[in-house]
């Protein structure tokens, strides 16, 4: 196998931080290499150097035997390197074809060669098995389809080495699996691929070889066939990390009961007569492919959306029409899906975020003035109790890593002694260590008798934490099954909408 790509001794510093430290990496023709590492391990920096977004402080990049001049994305493209960013760079108001052609035509040409471009795009789409409608507007496409357009954009520029940065971060499980099948087929057409990931299962499923980065250093390279998830996890984190396990215990009385709840938004039914019950000391998992009503369910249980029919009862009291503040007062704790957008105000300090939900309680305010000392003291105990690292009460919250930010939000919710806790995608984007910590906190809250509803797209997570599981499909909920009876086939069927209407599921 010949090497299409060689990175030798790449070092890159940002101020005091060494993002890449003497990293050497090769990619063979037709190979799929997974670049594995925790958040902040230097994966994205390395790929940005390869693509020319950054210039390395030391080291060389060779593509097809030629030295790549540093800091010139144009040169990288010319040599056949294509990059698919985690956050798509598409213009939503333009068509697929427009987006693919964007930047590949000289500005000086009076007429654009749409006909030829269209033919080339269709030929590429056909050859690589990436069906697409060139005249569709990007804004009308699903996330998975948009990613396909990003890949086509790279292939249109004759990429022979493709770099994908966290390609599954925005995809649901089946879409992710389909993507990897497609990528595998693409290597048969002579393409070589690097994908960046911190998810062990997809690295195991989709790569030929794994390179593990930790703290900017290349710590290991393994043939995928000759390693296992446990070894990779240890290499990635640098120590043994085990997710905590759920132990069966006695489940209490019903705490939160939804009875045929309907939620409508802009005339469309987002939740269609859903019923569920969460008991004290129980975690109820809601699994499903993204976009099937999870957002509406999250909105309902955080007090941002209200039922247009049916009842939502918390310990016998109807809470369906309370707003967020009323829900909190009634004993509901809520962990939002998007930490940055809804969880915290990044520009405010940790202590201000810690007390944000309870600013108007006597604990943290007196006569309209904030009790700053009480708030700071409380935050200090949160930092200590929930192991929020690298932060003091006065630190700006946006400086926290995703995991520490999530611990802050969890702490704010759990120290309030909630009867019911909503957690929506609680570990999305977190690294292994943080996932284990979040899981441990949720299980501890369960042991203390909280009723927890877990919305998750990670099946492993849902099965590991939940006592019972329901699937959400097109705004409707399946009957619950016990997590002990849940296997991937059965859950897959449930998530595809196959269940009996009454009685047991599937």
């Amino acid at each position, binding site marked *: 196998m010949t090497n299409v790509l060689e990175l030798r001794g790449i070092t890159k510093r940002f101020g005091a931080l060494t993002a890449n430290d003497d990293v050497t990496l090769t990619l063979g023709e037709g190979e799929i290499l997974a670049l594995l590492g925790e958040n902040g391990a230097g994966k994205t920096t390395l790929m940005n150097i390869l693509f020319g977004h950054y210039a390395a402080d030391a080291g060389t990049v060779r593509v097809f035997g030629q030295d790549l001049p540093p800091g010139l994305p144009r040169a990288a493209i010319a040599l056949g390197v294509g990059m698919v960013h985690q956050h798509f760079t598409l213009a939503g108001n333009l068509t697929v074809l427009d987006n693919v052609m964007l930047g590949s035509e000289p500005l000086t040409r009076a007429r654009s060669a749409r006909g030829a471009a269209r033919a080339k795009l269709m030929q590429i789409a056909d050859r690589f098995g990436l069906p697409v409608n060139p005249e569709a507007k990007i804004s009308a496409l699903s996330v998975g389809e948009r990613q396909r357009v990003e890949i086509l954009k790279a292939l249109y520029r004759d990429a022979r080495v493709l770099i994908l940065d966290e390609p599954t971060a925005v995809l649901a499980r089946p879409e992710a699996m389909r993507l990897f099948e497609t990528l595998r087929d693409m290597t048969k057409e002579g393409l070589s691929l690097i994908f960046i990931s911190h998810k062990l299962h997809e690295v195991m499923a989709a790569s030929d070889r794994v390179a593990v980065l930790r703290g900017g250093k290349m710590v290991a390279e393994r043939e995928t066939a000759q390693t296992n998830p446990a070894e990779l996890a240890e290499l990635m984190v640098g120590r043994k990390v085990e997710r905590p396990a759920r132990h069966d215990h006695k489940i209490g009385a019903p705490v939160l009961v939804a009875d045929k709840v309907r939620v409508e938004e802009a005339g469309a039914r987002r939740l269609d007569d859903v019923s569920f019950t969460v008991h004290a000391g129980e975690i109820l998992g809601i699994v499903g492919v993204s976009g099937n009503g999870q957002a509406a369910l999250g909105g309902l249980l955080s007090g941002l959306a209200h039922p247009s029919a049916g009842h939502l009862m918390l310990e016998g009291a109807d809470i369906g029409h309370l707003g967020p503040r009323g829900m909190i007062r009634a004993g509901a704790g809520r962990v939002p899906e998007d930490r940055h957008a809804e*969880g915290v105000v990044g520009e405010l300090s940790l202590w201000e975020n810690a007390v944000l939900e309870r600013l108007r309680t006597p604990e943290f305010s007196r006569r309209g003035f904030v009790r700053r000392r009480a708030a700071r003291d409380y935050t200090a105990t949160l930092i200590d109790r929930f192991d929020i690292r690298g932060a003091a009460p006065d630190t700006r919250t946006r400086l926290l890593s995703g995991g520490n930010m999530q611990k802050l939000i969890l702490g704010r919710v759990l120290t309030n002694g909630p009867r019911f806790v909503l957690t929506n995608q609680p570990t999305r984007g977190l690294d292994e260590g943080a996932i284990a910590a979040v899981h441990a906190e949720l299980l501890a809250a369960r042991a203390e008798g909280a009723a927890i509803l877990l919305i998750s797209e990670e099946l492993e997570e849902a099965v590991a934490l939940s006592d019972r599981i329901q699937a959400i499909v097109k705004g409707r909920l399946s009957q619950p099954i016990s997590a002990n009876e849940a296997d991937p086939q059965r859950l897959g069927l449930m998530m595809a909408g196959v269940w009996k209407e009454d009685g047991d599921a599937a």
Partner: protein
Amino acid sequence: MRLERRSHVPLYLVILAPLAAVVSALILAAGLIAAAGVNPLMAYGEMLAGALGSKLAVAEMLTRATPLIFTGLAAAVAFQARLWNIGGEGQFFVGALMTAWIGHSLGLPGWIGIPVLMLAGMAAGAALLAGPAYLRLRFGVDEVVTTLLLNFIVILFVGLMVEGPMRDPLAFGWPSSVPVDGDFRLPDLIPRTRLHIGLIFAVVAAGAVWLVLARTVFGAETRAAGLNASAAAFAGISLPRTIMGVALLSGALAGLAGSVEVMGVTAGVTTTMSPGFGYAGIVVAMLAALHPAGVVAAAVFVATVFVGADAMSRATGVPSFIADVIVALCLLTMIVALMFTTYRVRR
């Protein structure tokens, strides 16, 4: 070259940014002054002398700074909550008009009448901004448009009133409203100057606004709503209540500017009594990075430019409109300077 977000904004940059913005604006304006055939250094010298060269000049400058502190605070409060109140000018005028209207025939002693008139001006300003705030909350109408357009409506209304129902018969045909009663004229701070105790009110107001924003629950909710509205709403903060509260406070401060200006300086209302105090308040707030203490300093600077430009104009013949140019340039350079405090440039 790329921009990288700073993880931490050091204090020296926070202070340096407005200074750099002012210096850049003065350098840019120097080009125009030179184009008018005058040595810019000499012109700026005249400007400084005209604003700060004598006790009388300083008193006049501080007289101008007084309404600017109020309108600057009004803009700062609103902008903290991302309520884009461009209507300070209109709120200034309704505050002034309300004060003159009631103050002409109010049968109360001065020590109680003055606070009553200040409250009346505040109520008028608050009411004027409550409308656009309601439209934004209820129907999503952009308050930039509504508050800006209301300025013109209010000034035309003021013209109508001072030519008609509120016309002062003793003003010899000069379009001015009836004056406030002599009991309600604010006492002078320095004898034989126009400087009145309104300056002290303004500085106290800055302190009060700081206290509200930095220490109260309402202030914390305002900042949270301004910085991340969805997170604030998720945490149970009522956005409509917060925005409406901010609108009332901001409108009241701008209305107070007009009220104090009438009682302290002009006695009656004219359509020309404000050289753009409301608009300049926006620049003051931006130069202050929305901090109340900074508002006082920025108001003094802008007043210096306004007063000094008149003196410079008399001495050198450069049109005094250069003051508006300098103030407007400050807004632009400040926006650039703010970018450099938030981001650093990397190669």
